[in-house]
């Protein structure tokens, strides 16, 4: 609990927002999840976070600056398909989030990708889906037309 007060105080002091600063630069949105009262609250919040946006990624770093090769791979794949508007949460900013999302998904590693509130997998799975065409299909189900299809059309 003390840790929490300390980190909350630090947040308020440094001026970084405690709630949810959403930065929309047209490419991606990220939110800093701070001040969570308990692990149970975090689990509940995660449940809402993954449903709030069609595509949600928990990663190390940000889409503009990934801090890990696997997280970067996920960002690159999404970019290739023209998926720019997704929620990206940086687990390096928040140790509780980093562990909490692993518990929530029952998945041991980061990055983690969610489509429509449903866990898709990590980098390996996204890469395989990209290679075998499944990703285009899944995006279609989300109502997102993959940029890859337009690229194919142009080359024909």
């Amino acid at each position: 609990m003390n840790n929490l007060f300390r980190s909350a105080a630090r947040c308020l002091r440094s001026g970084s927002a405690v709630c949810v600063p959403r930065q929309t630069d047209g490419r991606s949105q990220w939110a800093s999840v701070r001040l969570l009262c308990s692990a149970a609250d975090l689990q509940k919040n995660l449940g809402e976070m993954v449903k709030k946006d069609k595509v949600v990624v928990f990663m190390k770093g940000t889409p503009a600056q990934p801090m890990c090769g696997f997280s970067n791979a996920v960002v690159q794949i999404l970019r290739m398909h023209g998926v720019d508007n997704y929620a990206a949460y940086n687990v390096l900013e928040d140790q509780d989030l980093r562990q909490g999302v692993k518990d929530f998904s029952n998945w041991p590693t980061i990055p983690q990708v969610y489509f429509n509130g449903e866990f898709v997998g990590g980098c390996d799975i996204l890469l395989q889906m990209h290679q075998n065409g499944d990703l285009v299909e899944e995006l279609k189900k989300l109502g997102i037309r993959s940029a890859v299809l337009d690229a194919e059309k142009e080359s024909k």
Partner: protein
Amino acid sequence: MSVTADHIRDRLIKELAAVHVEVEDTSPNRCAASFKVLVVSPQFENKPLLQRHRMVNACLAEELKEIHAFEQKTLTPEQWKKQNSQ
């Protein structure tokens, strides 16, 4: 580092009846204990990708607590044979 490639290989063979396992210790490329595995098992038949990966995760639950990064590829014996013939 108590988790070794051999240990991982043994667990996969024992718990998933893997007919072929390749474990690569990729730690030198990353900042901490990291592994890349290829698992070929008939138990993966008819299971979607996510489920296969969850099976591997469950099998290596204890080890994964100590591993920093983990890559996996899961194939059925048939897929493995096909991949080899290409």
